[in-house]
């Protein structure tokens, strides 16, 4: 496979992230100004010194003008990208490649979404005109298809599955309670989670990620220039992105207990980064917990647990903040919130804080591991896009 990666060729030297949540008093312009101002300050760079920009937003604006207008950019290149819920990661990936190619010296990836202004519950999309035969399920319904299939395949009974899903939500809320930027900054008891109103299948309202407004941004430069900006750059070890053939809904071989797109993108990323045992080598993983069954299945697809065992590992606390591998130490989509275009960069922001030991003390991971993983998914089981990055605090030997 001709995926060579750009290991250690570029580095993140500054990041910004707004609080996520209901920003009734802020516009999209305000949010991108906030996140980019923080990222620029963190890298000690003026906006005029940034050569090019990549803006990820699913629906809060079109074209590069969405960024150039509020930032008063001086005729700079701005790309606007969309790749469903992996939009923010896609902005980051393309920005990294632009630096690695030598085309630019200093670039910025920005993600933004303002979902609350729609007035709708959950996520909405406007599909292109069609023949009417596409099945229009809501996002929680599509991801809830995973739960009965997983139960059937691995012999997990309904109550056990409810306990597993509840524990994932409980864990992410517990982590989010330690995060001042999170949408839901409080712990929620398992009893409340488990008895919350049903939304789709077994999923209650607390099994769903937060509908949110927010923005995040990253400054990226060549690795050899990184120390001009910061003493603690975060190196990009791997970037992998795949779009599946989207045939799950018509392929009887697909069993709704896995995302092949995630398996492929993680394997590619591990190869780029030289990772052999992700569970042992990663300090943390920020994964796409859009709904609780998604996080369960991701633990297996990302190679953190053997097939059919993630549910037991979840119950055993393997992925807790103080567990063997902390998953979503910042609260994840569940608790931090999921402003689509910003989420991929928000995941990187947690790696930035954790690997630089700048996270709030109560959630700072204290092991000596130097690698962090982000995983971002767009679409639905059987028809999705998947992004995996690995970033690290040190260049490789």
């Amino acid at each position, binding site marked *: 496979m001709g995926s060579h990666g750009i290991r250690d060729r570029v580095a993140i030297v500054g990041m910004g992230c707004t609080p996520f949540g209901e920003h009734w008093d802020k516009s999209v312009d305000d949010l991108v100004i906030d996140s980019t101002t923080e990222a620029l300050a963190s890298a000690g760079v003026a906006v005029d010194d940034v050569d090019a920009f990549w803006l990820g937003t699913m629906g809060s604006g079109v074209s590069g003008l969405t960024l150039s207008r509020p930032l008063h950019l001086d005729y700079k290149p701005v790309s606007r990208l969309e790749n469903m819920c992996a939009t923010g990661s896609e902005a980051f990936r393309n920005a990294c490649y632009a630096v690695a190619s030598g085309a630019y010296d200093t670039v910025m990836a920005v993600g933004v979404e303002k979902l609350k202004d729609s007035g709708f*519950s*959950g996520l909405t999309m406007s599909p292109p005109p069609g023949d*009417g*035969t596409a*099945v*229009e*399920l*809501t996002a*929680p*319904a*599509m991801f*809830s*298809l*995973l739960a*009965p*299939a997983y139960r*059937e395949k691995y012999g997990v009974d309904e109550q056990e599955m409810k306990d597993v899903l509840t524990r994932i939500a409980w864990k992410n809320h517990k982590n989010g309670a330690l995060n001042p930027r999170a949408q839901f900054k409080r712990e929620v008891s398992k009893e409340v989670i488990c008895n919350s109103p*049903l*939304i*789709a*299948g077994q999923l209650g309202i607390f099994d769903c990620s937060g509908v949110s407004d927010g923005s995040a941004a990253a400054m990226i430069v060549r690795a050899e220039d990184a120390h001009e900006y910061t003493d603690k750059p975060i190196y990009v070890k791997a970037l992998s992105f795949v779009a599946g053939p989207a045939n799950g*809904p*018509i*392929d*009887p071989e*697909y*069993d*709704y207990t896995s995302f092949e797109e995630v398996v492929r993108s993680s394997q590619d990323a591990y190869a780029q980064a030289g990772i052999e045992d992700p569970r042992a080598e990663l300090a943390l993983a920020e994964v796409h917990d859009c709904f609780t069954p998604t996080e369960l299945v991701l633990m297996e697809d990302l190679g953190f647990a053997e097939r059919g065992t993630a549910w037991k590992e979840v119950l055993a606390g393997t992925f807790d903040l103080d567990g063997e591998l902390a998953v979503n130490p910042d609260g994840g989509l569940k608790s931090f919130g999921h402003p689509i275009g910003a989420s991929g960069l928000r995941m990187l922001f947690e790696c930035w804080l954790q690997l630089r030991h700048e996270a709030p003390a109560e959630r700072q991971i204290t092991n000596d591991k130097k690698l962090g993983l982000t995983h971002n998914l767009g679409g639905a089981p059987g028809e999705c896009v998947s992004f995996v990055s690995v970033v690290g605090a040190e260049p490789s030997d």
Partner: protein
Amino acid sequence: MEDEPLADLEATVATFTLDRLAPSLNPPVVAAVLDFEGGGRYQGELTDVDADSVAIGDRVEMTFRLISTVNGVRNYFWKARPKREG
């Protein structure tokens, strides 16, 4: 890829969900992944069904229904119902 008529074949529920968020005059929307006898898969709605009784492995047959009616435009397509007669 070639066209094969499936409307008169039976299918089995591979997985399913109840969508309580989707607008419907008859909530919840019951959605299922269906595997047809002889091969072929379709992800669609179940109808004329007791939402709380759906299970993996249920046998269903196809029925011609309205998927939605918006601004007077009727979107006709196929759904599945539990196999009941005969």
